[in-house]
């Protein structure tokens, strides 16, 4: 029996209305890997995330997670399998407390281990512990980003999709965040990291895919991509 990748996306097409955004994407994430998805704004990175997590329907192609076809599953069913998507732009519940926001992350999955998981999130993000009783809407931008990631961790992800987690974070906090992602990964969670922060993403990801215009134009080991100046200029705006 051959071992399937944790996530196996093949010839995926997706879009909105008349617009075809993804035009045949192939992508794999092995258990325990950090894989980066890079590319300019507007090439389809967020649509890819939404299609994988079932928010946008695949128009063609297959998505397999942990050995099962999930391209027709609803988002809640995909969450129950352990594929957790932390969306771009935080999307926290501003009128709920930090603690309640976190607890909602463990609502469908891992509910019985909620307290333990909350402790774990607080250990990773002590700032959230300090602010646990505050309304999430009163948090600063960066704290809201921590909360969104913490909420994702509450569901005990097997694969965590992070859509631009460094957005709005101070340089120091970006360094810390990437170290935390590495730590989350060291706990056995696979990470699909979608980022504009190309340099730091390539430092922690084992492999990377580069998207342009809804297609994957290149994939490979991070050091090889980092060492290719022409590629960075052409597709990554560096």
């Amino acid at each position, binding site marked *: 029996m051959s071992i399937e990748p944790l996530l196996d996306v093949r010839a995926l097409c997706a879009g909105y209305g008349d617009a075809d955004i993804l035009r045949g994407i192939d992508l794999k994430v092995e258990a325990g890997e950090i894989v980066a998805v890079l590319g*300019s704004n507007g090439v389809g990175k967020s649509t890819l995330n939404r299609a994988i997590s079932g928010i946008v329907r695949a128009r063609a192609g297959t998505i397999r997670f942990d050995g099962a076809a999930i391209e027709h599953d609803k988002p809640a069913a995909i969450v129950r399998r352990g594929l957790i998507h932390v969306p771009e732009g935080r999307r926290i519940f501003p009128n709920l407390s930090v603690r309640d926001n976190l607890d909602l992350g463990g609502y469908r999955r891992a509910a019985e281990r909620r307290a333990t998981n909350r402790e774990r999130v607080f250990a990773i993000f002590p700032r959230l512990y300090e602010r646990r009783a505050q309304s999430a809407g009163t948090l600063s931008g960066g704290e809201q980003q921590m909360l969104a990631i913490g909420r994702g961790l509450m569901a005990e992800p097997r694969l965590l999709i992070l859509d631009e987690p460094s957005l709005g974070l101070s*340089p120091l906090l970006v360094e810390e965040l990437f170290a935390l992602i590495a730590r989350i990964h060291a706990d056995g969670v696979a990470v699909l990291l979608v980022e504009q922060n190309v340099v730091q993403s390539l430092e922690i990801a084992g492999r990377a895919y580069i998207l342009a215009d809804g297609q994957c134009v290149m994939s490979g080991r991070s050091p090889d991509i980092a060492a290719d100046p022409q590629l960075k200029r052409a597709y990554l*705006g560096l």
Partner: protein
Amino acid sequence: MAEPLLSVENVSRRFGGLLAVNGASLSAPAARITALIGPNGAGKTTLFAVISGFLKPSAGRVRYGGEDVTGERPHRLARRGIARTFQIVQPFAGLSVRDNILVGAHLRHPARAVAVTVAEEVGREVGLGDMLDRPAHTLTVAGRKRLELARALATEPKLLLLDEVLAGLNPSEIRDIVPVIRALSTRGIAVVMIEHVMQAVMSLAEHVFVLAEGRIIASGTPAHVTADPAVVEAYLGRGAAAKVGTAHVH
């Protein structure tokens, strides 16, 4: 020397038990770009909200154009010439780019025809000239950031508060928008920007204030503050400090 257009004097803002801004003072002259940097949660956006009238300070004063405007409502301050952008941009998604900008332009131009002309001019200025007819929701992140800038600019501000307009942009998109921001100060607008993209802060700002835990911990030229050990400790981290330092030498 002339009084700065904006001066914030010992402003504090408390939320229950939390002192988000603690006796912060800063100033911004016309036709210059001033940056406000600091760790997440330092109180930068709260300070913007106080300056623009969205929040009343618990203590301290905001002076603008030689007058005390502390606690004035945002719409009055907008009329005086203070505009701000928001970190999370929320355009009217179903409206065209033109109509989104028009909302701002109507502040000073009740007549639609005039407002449309102004809106289109502003749209071109920020580089959205080819996209005026497109629904706002079809813009990319970079386009939405430009639209956010345009909506504020259309109110014809003298003081423009930019809250992380570069966040989420890739390096080439940042390079494209930097001259747009520089041009605003060249034509007389006092720009105050909250920004984490240090390369842009280094190249744009003449003066930088660093806020940490609600207090201004450093201020000066970009080179001066980024070399300050307290700023490296609280905000930049060693990696970024080294990069910014290198960038500055070249």
